[in-house]
């Protein structure tokens, strides 16, 4: 089986051909789907768990602590131990809760984040579905999560949960705009909504460098707005533990709580990978002008490492925010969106459209 770490399309094509040669097209399709599904499930679990671990380590180092270091070397298996603990915990259902919605909510949240992974281009050819409206798809799918949060808050029949859910609703609805506009700026630059095309368009330089100041502004807008959209960092009002104990998931326990927890971290991963893909060139290596030798060395690093490196960098930024800033109040949060982020974003988008129209950017 041909395997090339620089281009996964040969591998995937080989698998496809192998399956088609051995069984009927329908079965081959089903088998492919199963393989992709299983791979993503495992990927999801590993990334989710290790993001939790990473968060705990990052915050520990920022806080002069060592962080988890008991289970395995450097505590590497701590989150797995936690998961096992959560799996064994009792699933408490509130007596007066709306049973159906209460049980469905964690699944909606986790499915929403699971669906978003499908469109992420991990490396050249490593892509589950390459939608021609990839950016749009990501936006649409990631907004489903808030429905789950609202349902969770409502069905728990707890006042804390309800406040948390309502906050989350208001927050996500307003910050969706800024996320969208920030992404639109790159769509304007690259002229496509297909994620693979956007990545290809950054072969000679990432948009954050090619697009002058407006692209940098758009990147930070995206970072801020998406941090708010995934209820993290200084914008974690939905679960504000010092005000609402745990917000919308106050009444959840065991694995259902773990679903919320895991999906929160996966959302962070998705947002970070989206930022890496559209602004930081996805799996494209860093190229600097005409430094041939430098560019050659950069090309030598496999694209998948580039992709993960950038994603981890963005994730680190998001964690850095969370562990430094105090939390905003709900009205300040909405102020920030409607009075600062949205107007700046609109002007920025106009500016980018103008730049593209005049061709004033590095091509």
């Amino acid at each position, binding site marked *: 089986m041909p395997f090339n770490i620089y281009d996964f399309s040969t591998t995937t094509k080989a698998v496809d051909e192998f399956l088609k040669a051995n069984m009927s097209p329908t079965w081959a399709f089903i088998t492919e789907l199963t393989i992709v599904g299983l791979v993503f499930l495992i990927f999801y679990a590993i990334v989710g768990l290790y993001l939790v671990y990473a968060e705990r380590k990052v915050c520990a180092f920022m*806080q002069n602590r060592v962080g988890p270091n008991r289970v395995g070397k450097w505590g590497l298996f701590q989150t797995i131990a936690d998961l096992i603990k959560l799996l064994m915990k009792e699933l408490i259902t509130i007596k007066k809760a709306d049973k159906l919605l209460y049980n469905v909510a964690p699944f909606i949240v986790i499915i929403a984040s699971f669906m978003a992974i499908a469109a992420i281009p991990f490396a050249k050819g490593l892509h589950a579905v390459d939608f021609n409206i990839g950016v749009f798809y990501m936006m649409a799918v990631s907004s489903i999560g808030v429905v789950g949060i609202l349902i969770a808050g409502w069905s728990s029949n707890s006042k804390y949960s309800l406040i948390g859910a309502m906050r989350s609703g208001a927050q996500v609805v307003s910050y969706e705009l800024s996320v969208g506009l920030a992404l639109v700026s790159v769509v304007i630059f690259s002229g496509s909504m297909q994620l693979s095309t956007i990545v290809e368009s950054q072969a000679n330089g990432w948009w954050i460098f090619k697009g002058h100041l407006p692209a940098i502004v758009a990147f930070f807008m995206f970072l801020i707005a998406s941090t708010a959209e995934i209820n993290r960092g200084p914008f974690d*009002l939905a679960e*504000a533990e*010092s*005000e609402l104990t745990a917000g919308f998931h106050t009444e959840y326990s065991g694995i259902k709580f773990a679903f919320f927890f895991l999906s929160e971290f996966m959302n962070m991963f998705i947002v970070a990978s989206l930022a890496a893909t559209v602004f930081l060139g996805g799996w494209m290596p860093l190229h600097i002008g005409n430094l041939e030798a430098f560019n050659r060395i950069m090309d030598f690093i496999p694209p998948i490492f580039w992709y993960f490196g950038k994603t981890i960098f963005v994730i680190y930024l998001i964690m850095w925010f969370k562990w430094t800033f*105090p939390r905003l109040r*709900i009205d300040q949060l909405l102020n920030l969106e409607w009075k600062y982020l949205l107007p700046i974003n609109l002007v920025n988008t106009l500016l980018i459209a103008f730049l593209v129209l005049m061709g004033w950017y590095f091509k």
Partner: protein
Amino acid sequence: MQEVELQDILTAREDGDYIINIGPQHPSTHGVLRFVVSLKGETLEYVIPHCGYIHRGIEKMCERLTYPQIIHLTDRMDYLSAHMNNEAVSLAVEKGLGIEVPDRVKYIRTILSELQRLASHQLWWAAFGMDLGGLTCFFYGLRDREKILDIFEESFGSRLLHSYICPGGLMNDIHPNFQKRTKDFITYFRKKLPEYDELLTGNIIFEQRTKNIGILSKEEAVGYGLTGPSGRGSGFACDIRKRFPYSAYDKVNFKEILYNEGDTWARYKVRMDEMWESMRIIEQLIDNIPEGDFTAKMKPIIRLPEGEYHQRVETARGELGVYIISTGEKNPYRMHFRTPNFSNLFVMNRLAAGFKIADLIAISGSLDLVIPDIDR
């Protein structure tokens, strides 16, 4: 008066008010305290504090204990100002006996009080940052507080509840390392305190969360008996160390921090500035501790002459008054503590009504409540 009666709460519930119990088990009440909160959207209509969850009857217990035995109970009221609480009872008893303690004792008591104040304010800063959602503050505050606790542990063997100051002086002399360690700590903390400012004070989110939140005028602060840094944030010059100096406070030079804004930000700033002042006081005294005995000559059994004695002391949270009524026995006939948190708590409704639910947390954090001190 905006106090709402319990009956009103019950009727209000039927009217469809959104009533939430914040506490008794809640991360931000810093103990077992309950706020009954009525909401309109996110806005608070009224806040009713309910206390008594850790009422231990310390005043009743005191009636059956001798004066040296009472000391260890006072530790457990405001456990973050253990030294000041001990000192208050000791001073009251000494006043009743007419004893003058040696200068060495006075100096050491003052240094300890200020160290305790620093430790208490550090913990408050840590917890206040956490209340507002900045968790990192919590660890920085505790990291530095640990150094003070180490100093305490070396000299008196315990970190939180010392029972170190006793009527007549101190339980034992300070450790030979005490002065050096304290000076080391001051140089260390002078470097770390600006970091607190960078992390939280200057932060735009923090400023927005605290400025113009929970405003109390000076007159109201006096009326409510809001003392300590919270009162001084409203411009109420209530520092007992200045007004009725005790121990060695008349020998040192320090500023009484006053802010006139009366909001959460002012209460925060008072405490931050007080940390600098505390360090100044310690620096003035630490090198000049006179030689001498660590305790005055005391009879083995202390009997206060018949009469009433009181002593007011400035703890980290405000004015602590100890009121002893003695009938000439070896235990007090009636002992009363005017604890700072008791008065500070009941200003909550006045401060928080009309603000957001997140502001309730900021305000109660800025009042720096210690619940055992309220309930006693």
